[in-house]
């Protein structure tokens, strides 16, 4: 009897989590197709799929889907996944349900980097757009390096990292404000638009870079899954179990920084995805990080693709900045979590 009780419990836990994972993959696929069908020319899901597979027959539809909308949808998928995954890891390693990938100041640094590129217009042999992305990435990477260095020098505890992240955030925000103050009106409007976040800057190269970074980061983080789960039992117990919390924290944050820095460099600061997606994922699959990490990524992708569809559907013929929409959806969700606090909403 006893063997079957425990084995059956494990089978049922595993089954539930795999079912949630499969359902999310299906939902993300559906959101992806719907997103591709939304815009000035509305396309039915069947037409989208046919155009993707190359058998649409109509070259205009194929061009709209493949050349115009596909890069944006892929960027939305990748950025959403990166932010959701990063958010789950950051919340775990900082033991803070209100943390997000931006808590560490990386987005602030990326924003400053982008603004610097826009204002200085450095003579690099590449398109202005690519320069902005590169500069944003470099500053985000710089901030990440600074954060990890501080974490290594000091005790590497969550409070230290949060405070260091806050310091980095305020530093770059102040420098960004200074740039905005000094910028010409044209540059200022470009900076503001960049900061809103947008998927419209998508192209094949960016998508390939982000996909490659995620292809490295996801397996690397999955390898840490059991140690991250141990960290949920508290610092002391995790150490007693052999999880080596300090080293774990810095290694996980290094991967998260790479994913977040590239996501922000390519799409700007799209808020709330990295905060909300992990909570949704936790409600679905719990704290077994082997499931939580990919599910948080999928929740992020689903959230961002839906917001992207809405950004084009709300005002027909125009695209609202996606960052505004994720915040509009994210705020009520966040308030819901706060109201449920103590009943398990925030744990």
């Amino acid at each position, binding site marked *: 009897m006893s063997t079957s009780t425990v084995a059956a419990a494990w089978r049922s836990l595993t089954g539930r989590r795999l079912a949630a994972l499969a359902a999310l993959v299906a939902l993300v696929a559906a959101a992806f197709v719907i997103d591709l069908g939304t815009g000035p020319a509305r396309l039915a899901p069947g037409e989208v799929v046919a155009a993707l597979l190359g058998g649409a027959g109509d070259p205009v539809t194929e061009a709209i889907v493949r050349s115009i909308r596909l890069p944006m949808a892929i960027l939305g998928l990748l950025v959403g996944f990166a932010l959701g995954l990063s958010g789950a890891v950051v919340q775990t390693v900082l033991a803070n349900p209100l943390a997000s990938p931006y808590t560490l100041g990386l987005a602030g640094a990326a924003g400053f980097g982008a603004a610097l590129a826009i204002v200085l217009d450095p003579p690099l042999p590449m398109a202005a757009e690519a320069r902005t992305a590169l500069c944003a990435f470099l500053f985000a990477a710089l901030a990440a390096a600074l954060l990890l260095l501080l974490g290594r020098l000091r005790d590497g505890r969550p409070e230290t990292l949060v405070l260091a992240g806050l310091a980095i955030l305020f530093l770059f925000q102040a420098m960004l404000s200074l740039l905005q103050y000094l910028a010409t009106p044209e540059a200022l409007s470009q900076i503001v638009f960049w900061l809103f976040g947008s998927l419209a800057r998508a192209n094949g190269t960016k998508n390939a870079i982000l996909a490659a970074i995620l292809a490295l980061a996801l397996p690397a983080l999955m390898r840490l899954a059991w140690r991250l789960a141990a960290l949920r039992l508290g610092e002391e117990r995790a150490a007693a179990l052999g999880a080596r919390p300090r080293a774990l924290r810095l290694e996980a944050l290094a991967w998260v920084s790479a994913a977040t820095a590239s996501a922000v460099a390519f799409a700007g600061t799209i808020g709330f995805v990295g905060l909300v997606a992990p909570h949704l994922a936790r409600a679905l699959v719990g704290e077994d990080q082997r499931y939580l990490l990919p599910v948080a990524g999928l929740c992020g992708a689903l959230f961002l693709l839906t917001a992207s569809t809405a950004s084009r559907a709300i005002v027909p013929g125009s695209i609202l900045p996606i960052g505004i929409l994720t915040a509009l959806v994210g705020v009520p969700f966040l308030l819901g979590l706060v109201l449920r606090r103590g009943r*398990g909403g925030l744990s």
Partner: protein
Amino acid sequence: MIRVEDLTVTLGGRPVLRGVTLAVEAGEIVALLGPNGAGKSTLLRAIAGLVPARGRIRLGPDGEHARLAFMPQESSAPRGLSVLEVVLLGRLERLGFVVGAVDLEAARRALAAVGLEDLAARPVAELSGGQRQMVYLAQTLAADPRIVLLDEPLAALDLRHQLEVAALVRRLVGERGLACLVVLHDLNVAARMADRLALLHEGRILAAGPPEAMLRPRHLATLYGVEAAFLEGPDGAPVVLPLRPIGQAACAGPPAGTAAALRG
């Protein structure tokens, strides 16, 4: 078995342990007693290899390194982890990405040892404090250790659960021949649960030996700075009745007749 010789630990420039020498044999429970800040938890952490220490620590017979499990006092319970997952995490160092049959069977045996097999699928956050402590005990057993270090396993438990957990540890140590070093605060529980008591005072072992030899007025005066009455319990083990801090009048002494009632 555990052999600790001349162990010194300095944390943040402050000496916490100053030349501790202590042995725990297989099948034996040694209770570590001492006031707050004496270095009890630090000693467990040092033996578990979690804080840098000078001196010699030998775990297991010559040339062997026996498997050790350390149960810290922390007992937070996150939502979203089931009892089974928490117990499996006890095997963290051997756990593959996909959980194998060996790991599941070890977790099952550990849960069976504490009698909580039926709760395997339950979220650990929904359990009572006593059940949760049993789950963490199962986690400690899941790696099949030869040495267990327990930091206040009875803290925050009600009387019944204290007795249950103490009896369970006693039984497991006997059955499996574990070497168990346990930090306790309750002298009377320690006198019944442990084979020997080790008194830790300001980072040094003041004395170590059987309970009846350790629970003496002068030891309690040095260790805790208290005056106490000593009685013989119905089970033959000493009963300690703390009376007052030395040099102060008792703020609320035991009501008259308590000692007589205990004797009767």
